[in-house]
């Protein structure tokens, strides 16, 4: 759950969990976060929390609401944002961002209609229905499928930038940096191959045509073929050298 850490002059005064749909900030006593200081308006700002997202809104305060040094009217809070109200600082900390494993974010869940209605009302800017603090989230109707124990996306070790240089024909000597994730070579309708730039290297794959491209004189098969430094590719009569840029 997200929370705010209230401080003044780098002294932490308290932590406030954002467990309500609306958390109000102001000088008057009825606010959820009361800051008894004349620089703060009676009703200064409100934080609207929808599930795991929080939005800060300035309520036309006299001295304004600032986030990370910028004055804001309405702001979608991100982890570690610092809200400034007069001499006070409210740091926004979203635990979900910090602790939940990435995979947890991917589990799709269905919001039941009653939750939806509330979210929609909030989204439409309507005042929340006057009802006691209902649980903001209905129990999810679904569970995530099991996550394979130590399956993690492999940290991609970025490979050097690759390029090809044409070796023959009218374009001989020209080079092309392979910056895009896919670069097609050849003549559409005749013979086409594609070089895919992937996290761990460059791969040549046949796309269309009766003839398959060759690498160092040997035709590749239907599978993707990993390219090595100084491989010579030939297709549609054009020879090209693949190389990694220094």
């Amino acid at each position, binding site marked *: 759950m997200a929370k705010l850490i209230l401080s003044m002059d780098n002294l932490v005064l308290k932590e406030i969990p954002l467990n309500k749909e609306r958390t109000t900030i102001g000088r008057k006593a009825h606010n959820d976060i009361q800051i008894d200081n004349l620089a703060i308006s009676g009703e200064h700002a409100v934080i609207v929390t929808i599930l795991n997202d929080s939005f800060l809104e300035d309520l036309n305060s006299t001295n304004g609401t600032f986030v990370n040094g910028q004055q804001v009217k309405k702001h979608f809070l991100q982890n570690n944002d610092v809200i400034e109200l007069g001499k006070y600082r409210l740091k926004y900390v979203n635990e979900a961002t910090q602790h939940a494993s990435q995979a947890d974010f*991917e589990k*799709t869940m269905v919001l039941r209609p009653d939750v*939806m209605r509330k979210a929609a009302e909030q989204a439409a800017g309507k005042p929340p229905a006057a009802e006691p603090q209902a649980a903001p989230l209905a129990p999810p*109707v679904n569970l995530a499928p099991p996550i394979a124990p130590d399956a993690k996306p492999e940290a991609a070790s970025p490979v050097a930038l690759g390029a090809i240089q044409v070796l023959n024909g009218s374009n001989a000597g020209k080079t092309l940096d392979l910056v895009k994730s*896919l670069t097609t070579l050849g003549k559409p309708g005749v013979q086409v191959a594609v070089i895919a730039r992937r996290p761990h290297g460059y791969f040549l794959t046949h*796309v269309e045509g009766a003839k398959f491209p060759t690498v160092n004189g040997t035709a590749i098969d239907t599978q993707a073929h990993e390219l090595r430094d100084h491989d010579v590719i030939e297709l549609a009569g054009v020879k090209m050298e693949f190389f990694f840029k220094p």
Partner: protein
Amino acid sequence: MAAQDLSGAIEMATCSDAGRVRSNNEDSVLANAQLGLAVLADGMGGYNAGEVASGMATAVLGSELEHAFATRLPHEMDPGGEVLARAALRDVIGRTNAAIHQAAISQPKYAGMGTTLVAALFYDDRVAVAHVGDSRLYRMRGESLDQLTRDHSLLQEQIDSGMLTPEQARLSQNKNLVTRALGVDTTVDTEINEFAVQPGDIYLLCSDGLNDMVEDDEIALGLGSLSANLPLCAEQLVQMANDNGGRDNVSVILAKVKAPYPASRRGGGLWMRVRSWFGS
């Protein structure tokens, strides 16, 4: 009258993968080029219930629509005056929903299961698109890639209301919260839209495992570069999602329109006669 056969006009390819993190694949895909039908479902639920829900969705939809169009054609009108393609999609999806819901409430191991759905039915130079949840249909026409479905998700509602910009939505912690799904209730609200189709169009049905992991311009690059080899194109899109982390199941169905496919009206039908009067 025989069922329509679009296999000469529409080519289809599918690819579905568990991704790089999940141990099982809860997505299901079905492509029937002859019938002009593509169905993709992204299941949810504990253990293998998500697979059961999405598998039921594609299987029931595929067989029921095949049955529905065995003797009648999608462009014909139903008794209520609605084009049969739309009426049948709505009717069959309603029954599929009921079947999944029934299984979910009657068997504890399937409790709470559900699935998203996107289905494309090609007929008469058109495509009827039905969707529930956040599985999407995109269209690549020339250089431009357009999302034709609008997610039934919390984020999309927040974007629609102006609360979030699409850029901010990428930073949201509320991803993957769908507001509609098959199987979670006794009835389902299916959104159905129709679009005119042109030869050369490529339609992409995908689960959120693709569009969450791969930016639209990369999807467009893949579709633009590899349209000559549709199976390779489908594999490449899935590979891109996996190369970017593959945090979710990822599935794609591609449908490439190779030629026009106007419905064959019975010769001498009113429309044909009208057309001949105008010499077209």
